[in-house]
């Protein structure tokens, strides 16, 4: 991905190079035309002066032929020729010729000359004056213009880049501030970001729109949280009544086997309702930061205890359990939250693993990885959402992973889910400032 300002920069540079390239022939044509015109003028002046001077020369003193021969010898850039006498005087002729140097060793290249041919009468006879002026060669002009254009192009490009960088630093600073604050914004922290004021209209509009959006989000989140909290609180008592009433029903004598099993299945469903309710309350409590007390936890020990509890379940369903536990790994965290995360991940693995499958549990210095056999990838987008149906054949309370995710985020633990070679894998990278090897273990 390229930065926003680099996009126009590239276009600008391409545009500048096109314009400058196109300017080379234009410049050349202009310079060359001016050259030729100036030289024509120059030739005119020379011719006029020569003809005028000649007309003032007394031919009786000088022999005209010898005079002209002499002229031709000493004047390198003008030549006098006698014309045929046919009573017509040819008009002026202007043209360009290339010819080598008089001394053939002197120069390899032919020089370009601008020529003026003018007929005039001298002593009653027609003569032709040919004036030649050296013109800069085409390739030399083109080369010089190209070099200069190239230099300007370089100056322009460097200028664009430097200016762009300076501008992007200055102009985009408030935007980048906004972006940083937006990245750090968490709706559950209940604190809207305050943006740096900017004198750029668009940024100000963006900021105020974002501020409104955040305030509204926080408000919606707060009401939703309160609703969940109140609803689950209110549910506690009726759930408690149902549970105790069921308990009483079991004690009423005599009770048939059918009645017992009816009560038990009601108990089971009730336990699930209770769990959902508890998890919802727990989510709210975590959001309210009610688990701030922290202590050093021996992760290996805790995980071992939880695994112990489920060991029989692994056996019953013939699930192979491979554990690699670093017994010395510790973490400074809230004990309850830590075990909640591990419990949820382990039960999750157990629930979604098919019989005769495999569950791998790994605990390193600051890393916990749990994998279980599975047939297809879970829906990553909805994985950590509440009540997400991840697997239609295997419904759950749908809060476990949301709870895990909330706890991880609150503790700066990085949780990722991957699916590969038939294994679902959840990996947690613990915050390295709070986890590591127990100092006593070294």
């Amino acid at each position, binding site marked *: 991905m390229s930065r926003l300002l680099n996009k126009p920069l590239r276009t600008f540079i391409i545009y500048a190079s096109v314009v400058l390239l196109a300017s080379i022939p234009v410049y050349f044509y202009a310079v060359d035309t001016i050259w030729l015109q100036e030289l024509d003028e120059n030739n005119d002046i020379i011719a006029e002066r020569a003809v005028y001077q000649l007309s003032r020369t007394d031919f009786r003193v000088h022999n005209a032929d010898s005079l002209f021969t002499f002229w031709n010898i000493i004047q390198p850039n003008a030549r006098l020729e006698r014309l045929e006498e046919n009573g017509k005087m040819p008009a002026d002729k202007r043209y360009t010729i290339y010819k080598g140097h008089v001394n053939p060793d002197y120069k390899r290249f032919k020089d370009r000359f601008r020529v003026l041919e003018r007929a005039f009468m001298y002593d009653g006879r027609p003569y032709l004056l040919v004036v030649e002026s050296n013109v800069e060669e085409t390739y030399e002009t083109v080369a010089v213009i190209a070099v200069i254009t190239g230099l300007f192009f370089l100056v322009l490009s460097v200028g664009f880049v430097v200016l762009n960088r300076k501008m992007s630093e200055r102009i985009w600073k408030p935007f980048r501030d906004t972006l940083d604050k937006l990245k750090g914004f968490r709706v559950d922290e209940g604190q809207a970001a305050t943006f740096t004021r900017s004198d750029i209209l668009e940024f100000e509009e963006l900021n105020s729109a974002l501020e409104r959006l955040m305030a509204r989000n926080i408000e919606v989140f707060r009401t939703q949280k309160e609703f969940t909290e109140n609803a689950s609180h209110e549910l506690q008592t009726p759930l408690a009544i149902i549970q105790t009433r069921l308990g009483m029903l*079991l004690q009423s004598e005599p009770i048939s086997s059918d009645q017992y099993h009816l009560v038990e299945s009601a108990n089971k469903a009730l336990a699930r309702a209770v769990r959902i309710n508890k998890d919802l309350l727990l989510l709210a409590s975590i959001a309210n930061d009610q688990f701030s007390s922290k202590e050093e936890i021996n992760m290996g020990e805790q995980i071992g205890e939880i695994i112990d509890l489920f060991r029989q379940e692994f056996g019953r369903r013939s699930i192979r359990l491979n554990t690699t536990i670093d017994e010395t790994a510790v973490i400074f965290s809230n004990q309850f939250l830590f075990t909640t995360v591990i419990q949820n991940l382990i*039960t999750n693995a157990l629930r979604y693993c098919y019989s005769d499958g495999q569950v791998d549990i790994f605990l390193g210095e600051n890393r916990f990885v749990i994998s279980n056999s599975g047939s297809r990838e879970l829906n990553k987008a909805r994985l950590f959402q509440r009540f997400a149906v991840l697997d239609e054949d295997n419904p759950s309370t749908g809060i476990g992973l949301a709870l895990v995710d909330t706890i991880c985020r609150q503790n700066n633990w990085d949780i990722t889910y991957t699916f590969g070679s038939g294994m679902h894998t959840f990996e947690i990278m613990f915050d390295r400032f709070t986890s590591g090897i127990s100092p006593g273990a070294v």
Partner: protein
Amino acid sequence: MKILIIEDEEDLLDSMSAYLSAEGYLCEHARDFHAAMDKIHDYGYSCIVLDLMLPGGDGIRILERLRELGRADGVIIISARNSIDDKIEGLKIGADDYLTKPFHLSELAARVYAIIRRKNFENNNVVSHNEIQIDLIAKRVTVNGRDAGLTKREFDLLLYFVGNTGRVIPKSAIAEHLSGDMADMLDSHDFIYSHVKNMKRKLLELGSGNYLKTIYGSGYRWEK
């Protein structure tokens, strides 16, 4: 043994009272804060089951009052507030146990049983059930004087059964007792079976009677 149940919810109070009465306890009731305060001033109880959210005042105040009066009544807090802070505060002020609503009646009975036995036998925290001796402090079980070598979990289970002697205990209640919040996370409650089986085997091996009966293929009853 007298128990005071402080609870404003009529249905809940009724169930708890009925269950505990059947265990042989004498249950008294208080439905609001002031009634509860009057009761604790006038009488002593082996155990008080205390709901924190009461009409007329915070249940924590009742706990504080008990301690001001220098009374040693056992207290179990039952609260809808599943907050760790409440739990810590309650236990700090002097509650003996904390149970979050909703709970199984058998769980409540087991806890009441344990608290009363711990409190009542100051220097001798050993509960006897025929040839089985349960040391509540050392968490040790002996049968005919020989250590049964129960694990912590098996010890808890035994206490749970003994605390609910004669009652039908559904498997769901045991599952919750064993795994705490995790019981419902598993589709089956079969994992409790092996725990119960191991405990039973250890006791039988030392010559104890077979008191634990399986009911309807999945529930249990500990018989006298």
